[in-house]
């Protein structure tokens, strides 16, 4: 599946929720699921600090694809992270560079990405894109 297709899939999953309550309950469920990063990935160098919640993001580059694992101490943040990892992990750098992430808005979670949400999510997406650019440059050099 392409990034667009996974995004579309997520949008469909969310389309069954008629109000924010159900939506956030689902996000919270996602956040409660198994950790998406192993303990040694949760070190300082992978930490993205927001004012409010912390986010850890690790990236492995294997056979031209980037594999992300991530975590957060806040459960809603973690739930959203799990969606991002689902979309981005196992992609080539170029796919990631080209992605627009409109699905976050479509499923009605954009408020979590506003610049005031000092939850590290926005920085995390920036970091994901940064990894992609770095690995792409690396490959070309």
């Amino acid at each position, binding site marked *: 599946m392409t990034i667009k297709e996974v995004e579309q899939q997520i949008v469909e999953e969310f389309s069954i929720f008629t109000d924010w309550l159900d939506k956030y*309950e689902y996000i919270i469920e996602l956040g409660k699921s198994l950790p998406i990063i192993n303990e040694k990935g949760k070190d300082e160098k992978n930490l993205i600090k927001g004012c409010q919640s912390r986010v850890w993001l690790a990236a492995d580059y294997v056979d031209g694809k980037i594999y992300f694992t991530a975590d957060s101490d806040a*459960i*809603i943040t973690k739930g959203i992270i799990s969606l991002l990892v689902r979309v981005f992990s196992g992609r080539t750098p170029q796919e990631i560079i080209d992605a627009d992430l409109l699905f976050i808005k479509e499923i009605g979670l954009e408020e979590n990405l506003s610049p005031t949400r000092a*939850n590290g999510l926005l920085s995390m997406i920036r970091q994901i894109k940064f990894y992609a650019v770095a690995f792409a440059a690396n490959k070309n050099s």
Partner: protein
Amino acid sequence: MELYNNIEKIREQFPALTQRVNNRELVYFDNGATAQKPVGVINLLNEMNSGVNGNIHRAVHELSARSTILYEGARDAVKLFINAGDRGEIIFTSGTTASINLVANSYTSTFINKGDIILLTEAEHHSNLVPWQMACSRSGAELRFLPVDEQGNWRMDLLDELLDKRVKLVSAAHISNVLGIINPVKQLIDKAHSAGAKVLIDGAQGIVHTEVDVKELDCDFYVFSGHKLYGPTGTGILYGKRNLLEEMVPWMGGGDMVGSVSLEKFSFAELPLKFEAGTPNFIGAAALGEAIKFVKSIDKGFAEKHEKEIISFITRELSKIDGIRMYGLGENKISLFSFNIEGIHPSDLAILLNKMGVAVRSGMMCCEPLMSRYGVTGMVRASLAVYNTMKEAEIFIESIKRGVRMLS
């Protein structure tokens, strides 16, 4: 003047309070961060922005005269409001942070030397901590801290010991923006003065929730922001005793703060202009006068009773919640509540509350050292203002319960 003793009449003056957020009626409980503004403030801002607008002090035309009268009138209003000795003691700044930085530069450069000690408390806002850290690294002075106990009260028992001869300046919040306790500042000031130290009181929260009389307090400096006192953003006050302000060298240079200027040197203007370099936020400052008018229009007895009722309701209801830990407990509380609930991240709860129309603050609240003191990385804070109602308090409590259910 007839005083307001009816919450509906007070609310009518705040257009912000009637808005809906996320399809719910807004419950605005983030007043400690910034307050909403009454029509008196909004209208004066509007009027001035629409034409009663000429740069102050220096021109002889009508618009300049009218702006100047409004600006200087607001200074008089502030002077009366905090009972300062004269209008030269009231300096307009852009906010509490700017006021503290002014003193942390201008006062320390003359009066604080290597080896001196500046005493703060463990519970200060970053704006009353970082400027002093910077002042110390410039001057070679050192910081010392008065601890708070588990409840959030100042350890007054340690004060005598901490206030030795080396302490030249004490700077402390009238009310902490996290703990919400009205601190025993009068006692602090008296003891500090006996020990030969000057005292700055950070009144960012204190000016909103207590009646401040700087003469009675006898503090050397008192600072606050307009935007938390129902006034405009970008306004603030530095009150300082005349004799100290006279001796201090200005922090900023520029138009309006000078007596005369040659290419080589300049002399200072008289107080208060000496500390007001450049075009001030004269429209904002003028409207701060309106904010003070609003505050004075409230029946103090009514407001106090109203606040007490809400405090006791919220305290009681919050303490029923499983696993809750509240910070800042005591008799002298304002309607500000910081807490954590076991197993729940503050930002998760704040996000859900927002979805329910309830605006609260979560995170470190610009008090990272205090967070460390309590071993947490954040808290949830609800901070109320004079216009908040018991009904809103009930919605707040219900919303928390619902949020906790969702997150557990």
